[in-house]
């Protein structure tokens, strides 16, 4: 099966190396376009003024924090069922990136909250569940480094990631289930986005840029982890690094 072939480190390593520059350059281009649209083209909000520009970082970062966790959970499920080693590599490579985006979402949210809500932080359901997501990432990472046997570490990590997935719907619906200070969803709605295109387009471009950033960095980290696991193996000697 072609999927299983490329799931082997020997084939994945050069394939990821070939794809990496493409994703990187696409990311640079989209990021430049997103920053230009967000900082120069998008108009200030009629209520929030120029602080709305924080949104072009904050919202894509928050989406990424959940997207990366969901992708880790998907990989964990596949890894537990089919015993593919590459999914473990993916999960441990994705976790620090997910933690970074979660931290970024929390910090930019705080910087946006201060001028608009008058406070850096409230124990609001949305903010608290996002903070729990950060702890899930950090918990996963410390669990991985605490267990010496790599196979046991991967298994325990996969189970932790799967248990923590319950937090994702809590984050998403927190603004509906509880009376939060955080505003409800404006883009991911069943009846379609409720944002004007002048703000929605830069937001979606930044979203694409962050996704490409994740793909690029996760491929780089996976290659690095493969080198660590496979150092001294025959295929690395034959095809070179």
């Amino acid at each position, binding site marked *: 099966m072609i999927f299983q072939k490329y799931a082997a480190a020997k084939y994945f390593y050069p394939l990821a190396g070939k794809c990496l520059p493409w994703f990187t350059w696409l990311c640079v281009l989209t990021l430049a376009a997103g920053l230009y649209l967000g*900082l120069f083209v998008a108009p*200030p909000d009629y209520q929030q*003024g*120029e*602080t709305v*520009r*924080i949104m072009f*970082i*904050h919202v894509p*970062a928050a989406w990424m924090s959940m997207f990366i966790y969901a992708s880790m959970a998907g990989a964990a499920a596949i890894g537990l069922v089919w015993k593919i080693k590459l999914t473990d590599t993916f999960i441990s490579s994705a976790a*620090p*990136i997910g933690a*970074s985006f979660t*931290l*970024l979402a929390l*910090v*930019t949210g705080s*910087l*946006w909250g*201060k*001028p608009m809500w008058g406070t850096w932080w409230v124990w609001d359901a949305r903010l608290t569940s996002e903070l729990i997501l950060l702890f899930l990432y950090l918990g996963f990472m410390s669990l991985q480094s605490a267990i010496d046997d790599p196979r046991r570490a991967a298994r325990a990590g996969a189970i932790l990631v799967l248990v923590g997935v319950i937090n994702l719907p809590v984050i998403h619906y927190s603004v509906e289930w509880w009376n939060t200070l955080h505003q409800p969803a404006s883009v991911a709605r069943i009846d379609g986005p409720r944002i004007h295109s002048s703000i929605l387009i830069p937001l979606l471009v930044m979203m694409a840029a962050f996704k490409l*950033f994740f793909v690029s*960095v996760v491929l*780089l*980290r996976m*290659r*690095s982890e493969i*080198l*660590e696991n496979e*150092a*001294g193996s025959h295929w*690395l*000697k034959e095809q*070179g*690094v």
Partner: protein
Amino acid sequence: MNWAEFFNMGGYAFHVWSSYLIATIILGLNVWLPLRKFRAQQKKIRRTNETTS
């Protein structure tokens, strides 16, 4: 719009530019640290391959 107005961000310069600065630092570290590690690994493996072959 002139540049002074642009950097002032309607009086919210601190909040807006801090957000962009922190984003730059966090994303920058996410590229720099793994890249540095990867290049060091490549170098090490190339060196051992040369000495053994």
